[in-house]
């Protein structure tokens, strides 16, 4: 048995679908952010898999993933700052109850 590209793509596809499910069903802002991280991670994994199996001598997919990880870190830090600020203003981070722009 050999490890082929498809064997790595299927777990990454399942990870993406789990992220999609969580992003639609969850109402807590942090849980939605966790689902978003799952989707981002699945996409990063796909870049690396395609780079390794289809273009093995090049580094484009690896660098794209490297920069995507850095941007994901920046995005998470900002999103958590916003969530903490919203929590301080309304004592709640449930997206159903946040329907005012100014408190």
């Amino acid at each position: 048995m050999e490890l082929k590209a498809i064997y790595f793509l299927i777990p990454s596809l399942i990870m993406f679908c789990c992220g999609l499910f969580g992003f639609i069903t969850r109402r807590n802002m942090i849980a939605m952010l966790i689902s978003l991280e799952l989707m981002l991670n699945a996409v990063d994994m796909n870049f690396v898999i395609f780079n390794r199996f289809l273009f093995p001598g090049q580094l484009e997919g690896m660098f794209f993933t490297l920069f995507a990880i850095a941007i994901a870190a920046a995005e998470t830090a900002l999103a958590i700052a916003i969530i903490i600020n919203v929590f301080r203003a309304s004592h709640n981070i449930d997206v159903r109850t946040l329907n005012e722009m100014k408190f």
Partner: protein
Amino acid sequence: MDSVGSIILYTIVSLTIVIFSVLAVTTRKILRAATYLLFTLFATAVVYFMLDYQFLGAVQIAVYAGGILVLFVFAILLTSHPGHSSEPLTSKRRALGLIASVLMLGVTGYSLLARCNFFNAAPEAANPDMQQIGTAILSTGDNGYLLPFEAISVLLLACIIGGIVVARKR
């Protein structure tokens, strides 16, 4: 032909990814969701190591598992009670999420399995060493990544300042 060890490792890693990503979005305790996300990120790092991208695996562990997860745990402990469960999902919302994700899984899985030819084994490739990566990051010619590298350093600076400004006490 891959060795038995790498096939066993692949089985463990793919099962870990599938099980813990399902658990991360279905558990009702938010701190557990963050912990399951940590296991998924570690399994992804193992996939990077298996595909010979050692530097990327190290970055994944250091930035994702070491940095982002700590931020998540801080935010969870600041905004909710640790033992608190979220209320159960309404059936309408669960049906909507299930339809969207199963549709996505079906369409993409079908097109991967039936339409695309991704059944080739991994070609032999030298694993990119640190010197090659560093030269590529800091060169401006073909296959050089100096511009995105500088752009991302400015972005990180803006993110630091933005995070402080947004979250500071007024």
